[in-house]
């Protein structure tokens, strides 16, 4: 429809207390129109109380190709999890 209009990624906060979550994308000539279009496309049924739009070109993502090595550092650090520690069952509230 308008490859000349930039692509925006849309994030919606479902209700107060929740994070904004990515819901999809759309084209719009500027940020203001992107917010208005996002309201019409992604929140026709009270799906949100707040919308963020971000130019798709402004997003930097980790590359899926380096998936394994990139996230590997956390893989062998089992001591970061509470279940790593053995505590006698009769110790309360722990």
């Amino acid at each position, binding site marked *: *429809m*308008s*490859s*000349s*209009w930039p*692509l925006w990624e849309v994030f919606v906060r479902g209700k107060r207390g929740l994070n904004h979550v990515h819901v*999809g*994308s*759309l*084209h719009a*000539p*500027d940020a203001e*129109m992107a917010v208005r279009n996002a309201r*019409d*496309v992604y929140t*026709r*049924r009270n799906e949100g109380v707040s919308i963020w739009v971000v130019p798709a070109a402004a997003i930097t*993502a980790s*590359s*899926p*190709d380096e998936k394994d090595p990139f996230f590997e550092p956390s893989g062998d650090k089992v001591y970061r999890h509470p279940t790593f520690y053995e505590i006698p069952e009769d110790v309360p509230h722990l």
Partner: protein
Amino acid sequence: MDLEAQFERTVAAEQRVEPRDWMPDGYRKTLIRQIAQHAHSEIIGMQPEGNWISRAPSLRRKAILLAKVQDEAGHGLYLYAATETLGADRGELTEKLISGRQKYSSIFNYPTLSYADVGVIGWLVDGAAICNQVPLCRTSYGPYARAMIRICKEESFHQRQGYELLMTMMSGTDAQRAMVQESVNRWWWPSLMMFGPPDAESSNTEQSMKWRIKRNTNDELRQKFVDMTVPQARKLGVTLPDPELRWNPERGHHDFGQPDWDEFWQVVGGNGPTNAQRIAHRRKAHEDGEWVRAAAAAHAAKHAVREGVA
């Protein structure tokens, strides 16, 4: 690990493929074609019902119909956005639609001759669409599956409003009941065609099932739709126009007749009652909107310059 093996393992494990993952060219191309065709169907699907907005019999019915047609536009946009994550260009897809190089569902090439058609489209056409679409919520391509989840939630409103509209008409006068029956007679067979040709003639099924971008065969879905619809028709008090339709206790399903597949291929080939009209209307809307797109772009460019200076 070998990229193709990794892709196949992901799909076989019922995990989702995401936009930046490696995928075979065939998978990408097939998905773009399938999702674009679906998006085009939503957009063209606005026309037959939009035809009745100005003539809906009450403000309530008008507001409902407007909301429904607006939903169809939204569904088209979710799906176009999904194709773009695969590298498709939105402008190019629109161009392919209005030049007839990409297809949309054959059902939208039938005219809406009476107001009862609005109800029957909601009940049968959207009902058939739901049968097709619910399994796609589990399709292997993440953005497509997520779009389908949103769409299915909204389709449920479409189907229920259609059925309620028909219940209202069926509790009216004899003329209204006759209008509903006449509409059911016209839409039943085209609705069965929405699931595509019989499995034996469906060329894409096997590979698409392997890729998990199709989850059931055409005939399986058609059977499911018939089984679902028969009790709804009974409750409504209309007759489905198929003399072969009857319950088969051995199979645990209804037996039913075959649609006229020659008609189906004629409509797919561009010779349905309204193919030319639908495309001409879509092309005109696109061309008439050009000045709006240009003005919005110019406005944005002007403000970008001002803000840059400030």
